[in-house]
């Protein structure tokens, strides 16, 4: 097949997905972006940004959301990396069995999952009952309707994404690489940090981006587990759009969410090891 034919076939294959993304992702995104810079008179303005960013309440909610994302994401990496490493080194049968277990939480509705958390984290929930049975506490701990509850809920919600991306990144590393490192005198731990992690860095960036984006845009989990006390960017955006009909502020919040994710994604790419 000639070079031109290959290019034509590739373009044809990309066409359906490209058209779908243009209509249902890029166009609405562009619309939100343009809208956020449009003044009441139809001209270009920064007024919407100024009034939203000047609001101390928005800043408080923004930094809280950022904080939750920055707690959940490293925790997801810490918990998922060893699991992904072990899963990748298993036989095909065991690997697919464990992968199914990892995917299982993604197959339940987020609403059902979050309500299950109420039963687990509640005053008479599993955690408090266990701690009381072990005589570690006298009075039940208040876990529900705190930032802690949101962190737990989001970690459970997005950990499978991190595991999946890391396993697929680790699968691409040939077994010989690890064997070579070990035969050249590297210890297991050294090999993991100096060989495996750098070689799976792209998967790590993808996992971190997915989890962090999920954390700062999640709605159901913060709304149910955080209650009225812990407002996050998405719950604030809903309030502005659906209750106050303040679409101006809602579009700015949406753009700020996207910009935050892009900044994180590109910063991670900058620290990516250069020789990969």
């Amino acid at each position, binding site marked *: 097949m000639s070079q031109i034919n290959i290019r034509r076939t590739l373009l044809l294959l990309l066409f359906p997905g490209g058209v779908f993304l243009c209509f249902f992702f890029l166009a609405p995104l562009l619309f939100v972006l343009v809208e956020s810079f449009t003044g009441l008179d139809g001209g270009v303005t920064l007024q919407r940004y100024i009034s939203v960013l000047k609001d101390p309440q928005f800043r408080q909610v923004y930094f809280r959301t950022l904080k939750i994302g920055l707690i959940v994401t490293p925790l997801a990496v810490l918990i998922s990396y060893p699991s992904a490493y072990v899963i990748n080194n298993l036989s095909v049968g065991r690997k697919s069995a464990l992968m199914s277990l990892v995917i299982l939480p993604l197959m339940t509705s987020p609403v059902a999952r979050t309500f299950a958390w109420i039963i687990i984290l509640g*005053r008479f929930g599993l955690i408090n009952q266990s701690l009381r049975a072990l005589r570690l506490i006298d009075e039940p701990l208040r876990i529900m309707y705190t930032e802690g509850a949101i962190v737990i809920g989001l970690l459970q919600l997005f950990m499978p994404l991190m595991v999946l991306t890391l396993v697929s990144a680790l699968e691409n590393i040939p077994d010989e690489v690890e064997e070579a490192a070990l035969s050249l005198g590297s210890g297991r731990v050294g090999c993991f940090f100096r060989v495996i992690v750098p070689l799976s860095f792209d998967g790590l960036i993808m996992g971190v981006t997915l989890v962090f984006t999920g954390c700062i845009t999640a709605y159901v989990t913060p709304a149910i587990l955080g209650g009225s006390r812990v407002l996050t960017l998405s719950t*604030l955006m809903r309030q502005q759009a659906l*209750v106050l009909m303040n679409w101006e502020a809602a579009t700015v919040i949406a753009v700020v969410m996207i910009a935050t994710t892009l900044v994180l994604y590109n910063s991670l790419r900058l620290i990516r090891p250069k020789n990969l």
Partner: protein
Amino acid sequence: MNKSLKVFLYCIILSCSVSLVFAAGVEEEGAAEAAEEMPYKGQTLTVSMWGYNMDLLEKNVLKPFEEKYGVKIVTETGNNSARFTKMVARKDNPIVDIVLFAGAYSYKAIQEGIVKPYDPGKLQNLAEIMEPARDPLGGRYAIGYTIQHLGLCYRSDKVKPIKSWKDLFNEDLKGFLSIPQLTTTYGPTIIYMLSKAWGGSYDATDVGWAKLEELSDSILTAYARSSELQTLLQQEEVYAAPYASFAWGNISAIGLPIVSVIPEEGLVGSFSMVSIANGTKNEDLAHLYIDHLLSYEVQLSEAMDLVDSPVRGDIKLPEDVAGKLTYGEDLIRKLHFFSQKEMAAVEKEWIEKWNRIFTK
């Protein structure tokens, strides 16, 4: 064949022919009558409504209407804000014919021009309902098809009895109290009731807000929907809360010793309202639906199933059912209805205040 047999056969043939012609005539007449009775047969009516108690609404309201008029009802369910936003977005090409909203959103719907006035001449049952429900927002844009109130409830085995809104500040309720979120139907009325309790008047809202800030330490979380309050009570996360009367059937069914009280300051009353969507192509059918909603049969069956309290004056309920609803002259006299216009005017400012208090 003898003559008498011939006559007998002629008579048989003649009577059969006459009966056939008569039967055909009756059949045609019957078909014409049926067509006259069901002129909307095969049409579809889209109703935007809440999904709470949907099985009972299906049984008491939707199915009987479909059977009576031979039409199909398509429901669009969701909370007030989501359904309102959809209707505003589809303002130029509406698909909803009938919409059920809480008072605040009915008011917003009028302001946005997504509902139109009803024709009282097309509603036979309108004269049968209580006067304030016939046109609660003015301009004949909405009808209160059910009445509700905001009461207080508490766990009689866990906390001291509650008689007033002031009792929500009791020490034993710290961390065990829930209230409706400000953005819900009864949210703003919390401020008014605290103002009345501590400042002596509904207008003393500065006092109400100061008291809410004080009370916020006792509040575990503010609930967004009645089903959430039900879960909080069931899981024993909260011991007391102001509750919307339409949820009492479900709350009392939890099986815990939860007591309902009429506080000293009185009760907040409200109507759930029905309106005709602007731009509907089924205006006559929409009027028939509203009339159906206000009919004796629907109002009675909804009340008996503890779904909606009746607005008709001729509904007589047994004592055990009546006690669980917003029913009876004595109770209705104690209700205070707040102006939707006034609440809409302060909405933005109040949400900001609320967020400041609760996201500290």
